[in-house]
């Protein structure tokens, strides 16, 4: 039988006064067999009390000890140490709380005695199930990670690095220094913030033990104290820290200006810049928000923002060459593109999208006028030959980019002219022939051979091409067969395919078109056919289609133009039969189409056969779609998909035949011009890669996309310019001929459109700076990358944000330019700030006479959800009014305050000076409103000391905005597994005794992320966190608490219930052995998994079911 020693403490009268300890002791020793000795004593925690236990363990050979006294939170460590000292494992000890839970809360001594006895009995029952436990040891990786490069993080990093350990510093912004870098002077000494900070930041830059990662964020932390694995997302700087000399040439040529975040919007900066000259890292970097929506919407991925921006500053040639990087046909594209870019343009959410397409057309036209052809630079010529079958947009694009790569390209075309659908599918009034010819000539000039009148499959085969030495083939034969209705009479004279008409007209073949014409179909081709028919002399053109007006696939713009020209459109009618007279068409009977699509949106027309319409006509054009030449694709031996299209790998454009690539309409079915171009370019890249590397697919991470919704910053950037309208020919003029309808933009119009661009992506990647940069330090193709670090300790110093004063609309921040926040005021005072250190009004640059400071904006305000005091604003305002007075001794400062909080060394004295020496007027009371009257700002508030409303005229109003958690605190908290308080500040282990530790061992907090702090406090915490890290590193090993979960593999069934329970990823599933596996170093001992385990295979040591059950039974045994 186990021998248990039970010790009951009187705690003076705290327990003994209510609970009859002696009686319990006597009863228990006789009632419970396991109790070897049961003593009561006045103060068990005193040395004689502890000695009593130690002696009994030695003399009586106790197996377990139960101590009944105060809360284990108080003295459990004391007694554990006592039993340890006597050689007993400390986990063989159990503490019973009969003070806080019993004697102190009971008014009935008998009941309290009974309760105490029950509780002790429970403790005795439990302790007999206790097992000796010892923690395991793990070595510590002496490398630290500091998250956040503000003053707290800098302090911590420097201290750790000075001790000789490696430190990684991860900073979200482009420079380190944090909020302190934005301050002008610091209170209460009024020394210059920059002067004391920059030595520190440059020390970080110099220290060989510190590696700084800017524009980076921690996205995941796994592992455990001493052995963390951290994943860091590094966003591109685009400018090499090593190569950049800081000369500043780049920013001279940058065409874009955006409000500077560092200067809080009070001045602008170029995307390529640096916040201030002494910034660390002391190199330039580029602000890029991501890929703008216009570019991501473009199938060809043309850098729209880039060429719009360049056009806006009149750099037309540079703009055009930017277009050509992804689109060889600027001019044609500017005429016929479907413009997904304009649909995506964020300016459209404000007024109207920028006229991207017309601007591009202008660039093309400009080229034609000047005769310059700004193509991308040609690479060194190569010997390999590539064949392109089909000279449509995708074929020519492929040829263009292959040629740039240096290949010998031959294009084979079946028709007598090159250009594919551009030439034979699009009427000249939309795309004049000379425009296409010029673009094709450009391609020819680059060295591409175009051979027309050669039919693939007849004159050429894959084999013959191979024999001729072609290394790769790009197949882009398009869709040139008009789809048929398969109705009786479709082969009558006078019935013709729509696409056939367009082709014949383009090739100047003879076509007879009657006076009255029916066009069947609702797409763009049908509209083109109808309008062509008008131009060929038809007087009455009826366009009939199955779809209702709103369902018609043709573009609204084209339809409207057709209507203007006199085409009539009849909807919801499907042809029933063709009626002939003397073997020639004379009329078409139509039936009513009741619905075109089924519930799933599939094309499945239904008809009402009874309702019919008969229309007389001389000629009928069927324009219901195109298909590839059936026998042709079948004969190639390539895999085909629905509708006879060639199947390809959509990323590489490769077909199932090695070396053969395909793209354009023959793979997509009827698609757009720009998609065809995208295919052509992609095929060219793939063919290049195929020839050079055997066709390995290159993995390129896609750039992050800019949010599609317009934001406040972008709205603010919008210049108030209206969209230019495209001049067009009047309808009556244009229907007479095939003359182009749209007349084109002027250079001024194009430039203003360029200036309308909102620069959503910030940097537009126009490449101006790249060309300018002497040391070649700029690489615009940089992408995000993820770095994995292994560290032993983490200091989280992600800092603090400034309250958004816009949440108090009554104070007019954002509405009145002269209402600014105190951080903006700091920039005004700063010599490197927007005003060069002059305190002037942002609105007119005049020196303000009267400045009103409003305190507690976003602090101590329950209604706004910020109940806490931000702690620093009182001192900031005192400091700022002092600076203001130093600059303008005649000025007057007013401060509306609630309380003045100046708890700090020298703070109160400083505040007194502000009041007494600077003669600031401190008015106690909340401000109700700030408004403008007669050109001056009026601050209306209440003087609560006298109980009167008060109005103060102000030239400048400074809002003492409070400190709030960083906006992304949730992401950081989630990545690092930190818990937060209700505001979003990270939780420390203990508000008093563990202010820099967290509940996760090895992760420490410093600075504002834990709560509002001033600089000295942040520095102190940074030092404290460093001390914790160094203490951990010098221990070399960590002991893992033994009260962790333990898995009995014999019982585990591998049901995986536990895996999802663990908040610390301590449980993984062993796929091989089909059982769970617990990493005890990660386990925090919460026991959720043990409770959830359906077979009770998991137990938390020291909290096993056996122990709890025994305790329950013991407690309830009476």
């Amino acid at each position: 039988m186990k021998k248990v020693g039970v010790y009951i403490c009187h705690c003076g009268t705290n327990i003994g006064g209510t609970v009859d300890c002696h009686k319990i002791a006597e009863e228990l020793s006789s009632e419970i067999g396991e109790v070897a000795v049961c003593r009561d004593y006045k103060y068990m925690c005193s040395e004689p009390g502890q000695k009593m236990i130690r002696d009994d363990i030695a003399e009586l050979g106790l197996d377990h000890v139960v101590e009944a006294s105060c809360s284990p939170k108080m003295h459990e460590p004391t007694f554990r140490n006592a039993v340890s000292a006597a050689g007993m494992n400390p986990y063989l000890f159990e503490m019973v709380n009969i003070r806080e839970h019993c004697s102190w809360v009971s008014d009935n001594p008998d009941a309290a005695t009974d309760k105490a006895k029950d509780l002790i009995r429970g403790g005795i029952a439990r302790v007999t199930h206790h097992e000796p436990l010892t923690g395991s040891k793990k070595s510590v990786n002496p490398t630290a990670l500091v998250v956040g490069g503000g003053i707290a993080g800098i302090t911590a990093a420097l201290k750790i690095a000075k001790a000789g350990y490696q430190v990684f510093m991860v900073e979200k912004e482009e420079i380190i220094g944090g909020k302190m870098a934005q301050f002008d002077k610091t209170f209460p000494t009024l020394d210059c913030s920059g002067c004391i900070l920059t030595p520190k930041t440059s020390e970080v830059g110099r220290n060989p033990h510190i590696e700084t990662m800017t524009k980076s964020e921690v996205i995941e932390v796994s592992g455990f104290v001493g052995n963390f694995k951290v994943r860091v997302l590094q966003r591109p700087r685009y400018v090499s820290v090593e190569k950049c000399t800081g000369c500043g040439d780049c920013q001279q040529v940058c065409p874009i200006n955006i409000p500077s975040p560092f200067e809080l919007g009070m001045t602008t900066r170029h995307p390529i810049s640096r916040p201030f000259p002494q910034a660390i890292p002391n190199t330039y970097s580029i602000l890029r928000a991501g890929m703008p929506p216009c570019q991501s919407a473009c199938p060809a991925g043309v850098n729209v923002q880039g060429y719009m921006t360049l056009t806006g500053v009149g750099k037309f040639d540079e703009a055009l060459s930017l277009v050509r990087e992804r689109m060889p046909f600027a001019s044609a594209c500017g005429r016929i593109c479907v413009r997904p870019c304009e649909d995506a343009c964020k300016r459209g959410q404000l007024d109207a999208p920028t006229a991207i397409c017309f601007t591009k057309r202008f660039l093309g036209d400009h080229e034609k006028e000047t005769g310059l052809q700004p193509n991308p630079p040609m690479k060194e010529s190569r010997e390999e030959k590539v064949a392109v079958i089909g000279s449509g947009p995708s074929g020519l694009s492929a040829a263009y980019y292959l040629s740039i790569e240096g290949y010998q390209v031959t294009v084979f075309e079946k028709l007598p002219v090159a250009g594919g659908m551009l030439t034979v599918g699009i009427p000249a009034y939309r795309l004049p022939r000379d425009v296409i010819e010029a673009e094709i000539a450009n391609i020819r000039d680059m060295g591409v051979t175009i051979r027309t009148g050669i039919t693939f499959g007849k004159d050429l085969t894959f084999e013959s091409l191979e024999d001729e030495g072609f290394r790769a083939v790009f197949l882009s034969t398009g869709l040139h067969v008009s789809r048929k209705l398969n109705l009786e009479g479709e082969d009558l004279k006078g019935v013709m395919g729509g696409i056939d008409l367009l082709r014949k007209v383009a090739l100047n073949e003879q076509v007879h078109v009657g006076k009255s014409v029916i066009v069947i179909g609702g797409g763009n081709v049908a509209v083109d056919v109808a309008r062509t028919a008008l131009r060929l002399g038809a007087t009455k053109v009826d366009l009939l289609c199955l779809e209702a007006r709103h369902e018609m696939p043709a573009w609204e713009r084209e339809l409207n133009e057709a209507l203007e020209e006199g085409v009539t459109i009849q909807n919801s009618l499907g042809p029933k039969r063709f009626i002939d007279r003397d073997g020639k068409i004379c009329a078409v009977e139509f039936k009513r189409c009741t619905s075109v699509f089924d519930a799933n949106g599939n094309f499945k027309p239904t008809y009402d056969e009874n309702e019919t319409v008969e229309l007389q006509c001389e000629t009928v054009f069927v324009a219901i779609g195109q298909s590839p030449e059936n026998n042709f694709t079948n004969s190639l031996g390539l895999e085909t998909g629905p509708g006879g299209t060639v199947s390809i790998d959509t990323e590489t454009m490769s077909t199932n035949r090695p070396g053969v690539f395909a793209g354009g309409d023959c793979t997509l079915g009827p698609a757009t011009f720009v998609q065809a171009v995208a295919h052509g370019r992609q095929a060219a890249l793939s063919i290049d890669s195929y020839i050079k590397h055997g066709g390995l697919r290159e993995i390129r991470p896609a750039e992050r996309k800019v949010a599609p919704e317009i934001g406040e910053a972008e709205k603010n950037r919008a210049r108030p310019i209206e969209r230019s309208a495209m001049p067009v020919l009047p309808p009556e003029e244009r229907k007479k001929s095939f003359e182009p309808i749209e007349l084109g933009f002027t250079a001024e119009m194009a430039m203003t459109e360029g200036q309308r661009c909102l620069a959503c992506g910030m940097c537009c990647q126009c490449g101006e700076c790249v060309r300018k940069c002497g040391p070649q330090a700029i690489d615009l193709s940089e992408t995000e990358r993820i770095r994995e670090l292994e560290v032993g300790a983490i200091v989280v110093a992600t800092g603090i944000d400034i309250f958004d004063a816009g949440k108090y609309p009554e104070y007019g921040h954002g509405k009145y330019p002269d209402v600014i926040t105190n951080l903006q005021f700091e920039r005004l005072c700063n010599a490197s700030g927007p005003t060069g250190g002059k305190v002037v009004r942002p609105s007119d640059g005049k020196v303000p006479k009267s400045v009103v400071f409003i305190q507690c904006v976003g602090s101590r305000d329950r209604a706004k959800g910020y109940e806490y005091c931000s702690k620093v604003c009182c001192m900031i305002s005192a400091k700022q009014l002092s600076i203001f007075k130093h600059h303008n001794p005649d000025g007057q400062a007013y401060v509306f305050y609630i309380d003045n909080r100046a708890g700090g060394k020298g703070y109160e004295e400083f505040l007194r000076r502000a009041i007494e020496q600077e003669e600031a007027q401190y008015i106690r009371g909340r401000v109700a409103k700030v408004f403008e009257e007669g050109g001056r700002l009026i601050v209306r508030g209440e003087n609560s000391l006298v109980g009167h409303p008060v109005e103060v005229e102000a030239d400048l109003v400074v809002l003492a905005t409070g400190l709030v958690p960083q906006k992304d605190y949730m992401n950081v908290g989630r990545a690092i597994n930190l818990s937060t308080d209700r505001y979003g500040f990270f939780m420390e282990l203990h508000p008093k005794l563990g202010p820099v530790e967290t509940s996760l061992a090895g992760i420490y907090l410093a600075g504002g992320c834990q709560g509002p702090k001033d600089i000295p406090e942040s520095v102190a915490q940074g030092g404290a966190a460093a001390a914790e890290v160094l203490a951990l590193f010098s221990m070399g090993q960590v002991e893992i608490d033994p009260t962790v979960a333990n898995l009995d593999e014999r019982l585990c069934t591998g049901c995986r219930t536990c895996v999802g329970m663990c908040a610390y990823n301590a449980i993984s599933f062993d796929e091989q052995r089909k059982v769970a596996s617990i990493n005890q170093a990660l386990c925090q001992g919460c026991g959720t998994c043990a409770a959830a385990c359906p077979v009770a295979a998991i137990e938390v040591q020291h909290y096993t079911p056996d122990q709890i059950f025994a305790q329950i039974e013991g407690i309830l045994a009476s």
Partner: protein
Amino acid sequence: MTRFEPKIIAFLCNWCSYVAADAAGVSRFVQKPNVRVIRVFCSGMVDPSYVIKAFASGADGVLVAGCHPGDCHYLAGNIKALRRSFLLRKLLSELGVEEKRFRLEWIAASESPLYAKLMNEMIEDVRNLGPCMPSSQKPLKGVA
């Protein structure tokens, strides 16, 4: 006749509720002597088996208390306790243990008055229900 004195087992989370119970003691908030506290690391550690074991061993009521949602020392252990509580209560009631005998409460470290109040309230509730004797052959409620 002596008044029925229910016995209530309270499983308290080490980080919040146990601290509240200690604080209630420090503040001398007098409570009826019917509650017996068992300290656990987290309310998420309380296996429904413990609750059933307590009832089977003669407890008349069981309380599980943990940190407020969002404040769990172990991130979300209390949420697991919350998830279990409904189904457990349903099973208990099918087995003849009235719903009021099992409670799950959120008691923050600072809420010692709430702790004392909840305890006294629950003692009265359970006293009114009478002794819990699910294993005896008394009629059961509907099982569905």
